[in-house]
């Protein structure tokens, strides 16, 4: 199976509560919290599309879109 390729991190800033869970448990340290405590995919080129951030977010605020 080909590795999924990242298309976009969809971050719902209205829903994100800045808990930092996705940031902490991202294996590639792709994510960071900005000044407003909302998550941003700063190092998105490192993303391996494991979707752990999406699966763990308590607020359903982050979604990984991959290219098919």
């Amino acid at each position, binding site marked *: 199976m080909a590795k999924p390729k990242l298309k976009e991190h969809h971050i719902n800033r*209205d829903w994100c509560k800045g808990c930092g869970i996705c940031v902490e448990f991202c294996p590639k340290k792709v994510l960071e919290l900005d000044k407003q405590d909302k998550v941003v995919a700063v190092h998105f080129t490192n993303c391996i599309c494991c979707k752990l951030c999406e699966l763990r977010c308590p607020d359903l605020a982050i979604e990984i879109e991959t290219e098919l």
Partner: protein
Amino acid sequence: MAIKDYIRERFFPHIWCPGCGHGMVLNALLRAFEDLAISKNEIVMVSGIGCSARISGYVDVHTLHTIHGRALAFATGVKMSRPELNLIVPMGDGDALAIGGNHFIHAARRNIDITAIVMNNRIYGMTGGQYSPLSGYGTLATTAPFINIDHAFDVVELAKAAGATFVARTTTYHVKQMSELFKEAILREGFSVIEVLTQCPTYFGRKNKAGSAVDMVKSFKDNTTPVGSKAKLESPGLIERGIFVQKDLPEYTREYDKVIERAMKKR
């Protein structure tokens, strides 16, 4: 269907605190629904009262938000009269095992086909941090300002002894396992109990100096081990997670069909 198709988007962002584990349970449950591709009309979610119980408001299925501790009794009525429906009952630890303890053991004993999820944050979140029957000896709570001298239930042992035919435990760190367990429980016929160790950073975390939500989730990683692992022998303090019971016994509503059959012969 995407997971967003299973939620009532207009109520988001939800009411839970930042980092509350209840949202992670919701997340994993939605993924289980999505993977199973169950029709929303076939699911009835019944909850009691507590932060955890608010989960029912967010899921676009038939939802019954009831009274504290009694969700399983309501669910029993729904299931008895419409056995073809899929009953999911998420409960807080106080909801399930303090005020609702009696309904819990009796629903398990009957082996009625319900998926019971115990969202165990070891505290009463909604009422502001009082100890629950799962807080455990030595913890602190607003009602245990010096030390909690109440011993905790072991949900797995309790469910086993009461007769549940599927018993599992996982944590909010192990979200993939959580989804898988939910799926198995939903597909199985009989009373299933999944205990999810989840974090209440706001009350349990603060009272017990357990750190942030992130720290608490990390501790679930560090303090648990797969059921039957060697690590448990070396460090007996580790909490086991995984499937503890999985057995096929006649399900209650099917058994009642036999009662109907017998009764009809006697007409």
